[in-house]
């Protein structure tokens, strides 16, 4: 057996680090999916009537839809009736501030290396922590509100800023958009809301940390980010889940709205439980993420490092409506063992002189399948649209697959669209070269993989980049050698 294959053989030896779960008393919806459950969730959250009606409408829409099957992934049909759609840690009363949050819940986040205690936080990142279905607490709220920035859980936003939620909810990802987006619209439980007023540059990174803890519970969160004229924000999202034998469903929706001259950077380090080395368990990650560059000269930039989940189905996209607006997508997707990822982006050029850039780096190991699926669409009136796409695949071993599905649809002859794609293998000679300099095989893989993904990792905020590098190395640990 070649060295590469042995490396791959052992790749699976690394246990998922965040595989623990914690027992706490939970406030749960009954299992199943129907109008009553939706009423139950909405009542639980003390929602206004308009939102309940919005949910019910989404549910009706969803009932007439079928699960999409075009993605290059296979998994057994999910029995949506066997899931629970709401689970929240029981708290005696609603916490008013972080000090009132159950210390046990804070400890869950401590264990993940996320400190929700503001005093202790040095990094200057404001965090909203979402456990199962609800937001546990948001840090730095006061500091931010002085600038007029709203950063809170989605439920809180519904209560405190209903006019904003009403205005933007579903404006970028309509409930009719797709099967999972419709489902999310019907049953979403919580998530984060972020509003940057006109002319404000958010002085710190805003971050949401998602954790699934409860068993048999779907996580359906919604994130809504609005940046008004000249506003700027950099937003980070991290996710983990315990190791369980059954698959768990995660179907989130993220909407971003960027007004004139606004800029939003959205970075994700996705580390949901990927399933064990035999492909048992793991998260089904079916996510709809989309941003609209509504104003002229606005910019939305997606950066994602995808290492977890058993099945990933995710296409963070940009609608470039404003003239001179810019959309970017930087992605590293790693799959190992039996993981399947079908991910990419859509860049829809509507405005004049719009630009988009796509850099996708797939890394497949084990028996995994890794697909890039990207669409570049240039509308009739989008004069001088520009797109550059670079899609690279790196293979480790010979039992995994890498696939590229670029769709290009040009309706304006002044458009310039460039697409480059490469496929390479981590070579035995690269590994041997590193070994010959005294570098262990594990570290050699980490070095080579991080070098390969560098252009994307460079887009991440500093602390996140370091985390992501470690995560890449960890995901591929034992994959060679």
């Amino acid at each position: 057996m070649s060295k590469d294959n042995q490396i791959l053989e052992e790749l699976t030896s690394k246990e998922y680090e965040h595989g623990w779960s914690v027992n706490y008393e939970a406030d749960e919806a009954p299992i199943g999916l129907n109008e009553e459950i939706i009423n139950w969730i909405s009542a639980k959250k003390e929602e206004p009537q308009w939102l309940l009606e919005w949910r019910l409408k989404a549910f009706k829409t969803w009932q007439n839809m079928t699960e999409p099957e075009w993605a290059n992934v296979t998994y057994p049909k999910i029995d949506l009736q066997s899931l629970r759609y709401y689970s929240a840690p029981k708290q005696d009363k609603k916490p008013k501030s972080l000090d009132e949050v159950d210390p046990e819940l804070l400890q869950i986040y401590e264990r993940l290396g996320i400190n929700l205690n503001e005093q202790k936080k040095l990094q200057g990142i404001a965090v909203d922590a979402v456990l199962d279905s609800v937001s546990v607490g948001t840090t730095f709220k006061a500091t931010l509100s002085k600038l007029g920035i709203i950063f809170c859980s989605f439920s809180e936003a519904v209560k405190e800023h209903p006019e904003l939620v009403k205005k933007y909810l579903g404006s970028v990802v309509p409930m009719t958009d797709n099967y999972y987006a419709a489902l999310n619209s019907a049953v979403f439980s919580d998530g984060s809301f972020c509003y940057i007023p006109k002319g404000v540059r958010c002085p710190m990174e805003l971050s949401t940390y998602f954790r699934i803890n409860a068993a048999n519970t779907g996580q359906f969160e919604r994130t809504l980010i609005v940046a008004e004229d000249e506003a700027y924000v950099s937003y980070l999202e991290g996710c983990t889940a315990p190791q369980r034998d059954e698959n768990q469903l995660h179907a989130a929706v993220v909407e971003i709205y960027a007004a004139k001259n606004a800029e939003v950077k959205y970075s994700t380090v996705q580390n949901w439980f990927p399933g064990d080395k035999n492909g048992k368990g793991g998260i089904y990650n079916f996510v709809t993420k989309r941003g609209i560059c509504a104003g002229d000269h606005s910019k939305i930039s997606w950066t994602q490092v995808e290492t977890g989940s058993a099945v990933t189905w995710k296409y963070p996209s940009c609608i470039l409506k404003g003239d001179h607006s810019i959309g970017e997508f930087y992605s590293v997707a790693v799959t190992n063992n039996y993981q399947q990822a079908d991910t990419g982006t859509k860049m829809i050029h509507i405005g004049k002189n719009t630009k988009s850039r796509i850099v996708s780096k797939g890394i497949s190991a084990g028996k995994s399948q890794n697909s890039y699926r990207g669409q570049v669409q240039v509308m009739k009136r989008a004069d001088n649209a520009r797109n550059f796409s670079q899609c690279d695949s790196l293979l480790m071993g010979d039992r995994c697959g890498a696939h590229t599905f670029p769709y290009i649809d040009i309706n304006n002859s002044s458009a310039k669209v460039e697409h480059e794609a490469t496929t390479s293998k981590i070579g035995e000679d690269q590994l041997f070269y590193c070994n010959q300099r005294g570098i262990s095989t594990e570290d050699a893989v980490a070095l080579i993989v991080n070098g390969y993904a560098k252009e994307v990792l460079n887009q991440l905020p500093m602390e996140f980049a370091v985390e992501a590098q470690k995560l890449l190395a960890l995901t591929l640990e034992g994959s060679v050698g």
Partner: protein
Amino acid sequence: MLTIKNLHASIEGTPILRGINLEVKAGEVHAIMGPNGSGKSTLASVLAGREEYEVTEGEVSFKGKDLLDLAPEDRAREGVFLAFQYPVEIPGVSSTNFLRTAVNQVREYRGLEALDAVKFLTMMKEKMKLVEIDQKLLSRSLNEGFSGGEKKRNEIFQMAMLEPTLSILDETDSGLDIDALRIVSNGVNQLKSKDNATIVVTHYQRLLDYIVPDYVHVLYKGKIVKSGTKELALELEEKGYDWIKEAVDSEATV
């Protein structure tokens, strides 16, 4: 320091090395010459621990240890350095980053503490002078887009950084221009000490004017068929390999 006894090695079932015997002592320089395909790079790879080669017979001891028993990275950490005939490119990884990982792993193995960024850069600056390598080259991706000569120079720079006890230079001279050959050879000479040894694989006598060997060996069909002093290299330069080949081949048919 290095003792090779009756070393046989094959690749995919084809025997390439057929009984190599060689003794290298500290402070010595050995030159290995021989026609294309005779097994010189194979010998270097086997010593460095490349897994594709199967050692079918023989033994190699290095500083009293069974070299063949060690993983390639441990051989390197013990002090075996191979300057590759064809250095490999690693996109996205700068020479600096690569070497820092290497140097610190080697140091850890030798029970030394890791060098911090400042100490490491100081050391780099010092060694850069030795082979007159440009800083710009070192901040680029390792060997990616390097010219042939730049790659070779970078190999010797790495050697300087890793401070090996046994250096095997596989055709380091090929691809170097006349000035570079002098500079790189000077670098190698400055790294020489009574405690380390060098094996240079080359086709050209010219290199041996700079790096003067104590012994010259001719490898042919996987065996050392002739050994001598540096005069042997001059003789080969003049007469080629035919006379040696003939002698060996006629002996074999007897």
